[in-house]
């Protein structure tokens, strides 16, 4: 039998979130194709199968069960809800979950969450970085005192994730946090923006997904709230969010999870040359290099690198099991050299994970919409570990207590 490493691909190409889901899925699949075009993972060919979740948890679970049976070694659930559900199932099945830039923030604690890998950053990091950024703009954290920040969020676990960090920050720096939930899917936000207009916050953080983002921007236009004062989560900072608002969204900022829209990155060029040029591209060419496409690619790369790293220990050119891949992800060491070789120079910074740290790194930039495209407008930030670490630990401990789990021993970490 040929040596093939199977990658399940959970996607949503239909439904309310399709405009965002499609480019992500295309990036993901294109990267896998690129790896194959370059000879596979040390000679092991990648096979993959898409499964449509429609962003619905029960369908996601069904996809998981189905693709698991086909020999999946790593899952990327691509929805907070599905992540929650799979977190319960993965340990029994011994399949790691990569949730790059989403999922439960406390799962960064590998001591409790053995099978979860929120690589490259969690929502808590994202929220923390936004605070840091505006503090910098204001001229220091102390300048935040008395300021008012409104969080306009998707009323769901996803939208509520940043609240503890922001509350913590608000307490220490003395700024006001106004919470404005928006009922999913967020097509009607008039009341929310009337409240914004009334309280005139200094900044608005936009924690939305899908149609909610563009609707928020349009309401901001209609109520005259300056877009420059709006900062989005990294899922609210892609082309579909601003495309049909166009010029009116000019000045709107969002966090960039390491990367932004970088059509001229090396890896993107590779895809154009080795995949699209051969007519094997998954989506339209124009979309290649867009924000969510890049994120899909990045996520795929992390999975592939996990397998590659595992092969280093368990045998090059072999097909890895879920457990072996888990080790690979836990011992990921993507230094600058490797990244450069992969073509990710300028797209992301090095990541290295460990038994306790399943996040690896949390580098983030801010990018801004200029009416036509996204461009970086800040330097790199990282989440403030002094604040985040204790929070992660406390939350993870609570989870462990609820589940009657023991923290992993150092011995277990070696395995």
């Amino acid at each position: 039998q040929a040596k093939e490493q199977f990658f399940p691909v959970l996607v949503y190409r239909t439904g309310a979130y399709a405009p965002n889901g499609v480019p992500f899925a295309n990036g993901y699949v294109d990267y896998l194709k690129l790896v194959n075009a370059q000879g596979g993972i040390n000679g092991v060919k990648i096979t993959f199968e898409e499964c449509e979740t429609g962003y619905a948890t029960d369908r996601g679970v069904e996809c998981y069960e189905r693709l698991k049976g086909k020999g999946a070694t790593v899952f990327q659930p691509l929805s907070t809800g599905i992540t929650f559900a799979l977190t319960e199932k993965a340990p029994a099945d011994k399949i790691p979950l990569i949730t790059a830039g989403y999922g439960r923030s406390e799962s960064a604690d590998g001591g409790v969450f053995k099978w979860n890998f929120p690589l490259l950053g969690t929502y808590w990091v994202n929220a923390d970085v936004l605070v840091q950024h505006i503090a910098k703009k204001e001229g220091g954290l102390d300048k935040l005192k008395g300021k008012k920040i409104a969080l306009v969020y998707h009323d769901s676990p996803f939208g509520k994730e940043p609240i503890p960090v922001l509350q913590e920050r608000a307490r220490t720096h003395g700024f006001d946090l106004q919470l404005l939930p928006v009922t999913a899917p967020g097509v009607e936000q008039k009341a929310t923006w009337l409240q914004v207009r009334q309280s005139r916050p200094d900044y608005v953080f936009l924690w939305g997904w899908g149609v909610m983002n563009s609707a928020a921007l349009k309401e901001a236009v209609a109520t005259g709230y300056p877009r420059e004062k709006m900062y989005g989560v990294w899922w609210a900072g892609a082309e579909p969010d601003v495309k049909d608002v166009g010029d009116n969204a000019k000045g709107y900022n969002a966090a960039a999870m390491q990367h932004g829209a970088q059509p001229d990155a090396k890896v993107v060029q590779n895809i154009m040359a080795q995949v699209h040029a051969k007519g094997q591209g998954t989506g339209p060419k124009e979309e290649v290099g867009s924000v969510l496409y890049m994120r899909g690619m990045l996520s795929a790369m992390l999975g592939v690198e996990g397998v590659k790293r595992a092969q280093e220990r368990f045998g090059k050119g072999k097909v890895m099991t879920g457990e072996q891949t888990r080790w690979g992800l836990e011992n990921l060491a993507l230094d600058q050299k490797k990244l450069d070789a992969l073509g990710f120079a300028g797209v992301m910074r090095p990541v290295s994970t460990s038994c306790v740290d399943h996040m690896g790194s949390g580098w983030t930039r801010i990018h801004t919409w200029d009416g036509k495209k996204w461009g970086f407008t800040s330097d790199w930030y990282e989440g403030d570990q002094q604040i985040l670490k204790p929070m992660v630990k406390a939350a993870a401990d609570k989870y462990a207590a609820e589940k009657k789990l023991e923290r992993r021993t150092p011995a277990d970490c070696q395995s």
Partner: protein
Amino acid sequence: MLYRENGQFKTSYRADQQIFPILQDRVVIGLLIAFAFFAVPMMASEYMYRAILVPFLILSLAAIGLNILVGYCGQISLGTGAFMAIGAYGAYNFMVRIEGMPLLAALVLGGVCATVVGVLFGIPSLRIKGLYLAVATLAAQFFTDWSFLRIKWFTNDSSSGSVSVSGLKLLGWNITTPLDKYLFCLGFVIVCAWLAKNLVRSHIGREWMAMRDMDVAAAVIGIRPIYAKLTAFAVSSFFVGMAGALWGFVHLGSWEPAAFSIDRSFQLLFMVIIGGLGSIMGSFFGAAFIVILPIALNQIPAAMGIPISTALASHLEAMIFGALIVFFLIVEPHGLARLWSTAKEKLRLWPFPH
């Protein structure tokens, strides 16, 4: 010729009141249950359990609950998801807040929570009727969705509003493997279905149906609308609540309010209508249809090796699903259960038509 009740004389009313008065039916059902308990575990794969059988069983239970309300009592509800959520979060709270809470008790108590809220939301039904009531029940749906997101106490202060349970245990039996879960659900659902069937063929069931068919006449023969409607809401929510608890505990293991969204409510309504209003058996048919159909449609292209894109496949799936629903409604507006009994009637006449 095989399927006849000829020669099967009932010597007591009791015998005539059995769930399946015809011997052949009893044998078939007996075999079916035996098959489910003994043969299925020998053949089913893990995927079958987790993605099909367990959801099918749990949703059947919810459909039975909804059928009591809609099919038997005639009160259309679009808020079933809410009562599932209440059952799930209720059971969860009993589980985490009371040390050593037995699983079964938690599930039942979850059902009780749903019952209480169900009765509360049932009160307007005394005045509001038909489609007005149907839409008004969405108030329950959106209100509970909101409550479980907003009121932290319900989710044991989880920052995101999502909760999880594990380590299910019943009288020393650790329910961990998919097979365990399947058997547990199977037993639970069969018992519940039996209870539900008993209710609907007792006088309380007749009161519900009387309310459904002609409420003024029902009142004239001494049925109190308040009692009939509220018990229907109560019993229905009880089953739905337990189903919700099972869905959370056994199927998902971890859930957020979105697991019980309005889509779930519609899905359940589909089940009872496709399956057959006013039929316990129909609830199973409906659940099977709605659970299996999309999965099957989804896998057909891959299984046949037709290379179409995921998006197109799922659009086609939605189209075929919608078309099939319409098709079945046209073939038999009273659902699969009626189709089934018509088929049986034909069989009874076979080989002589009519």
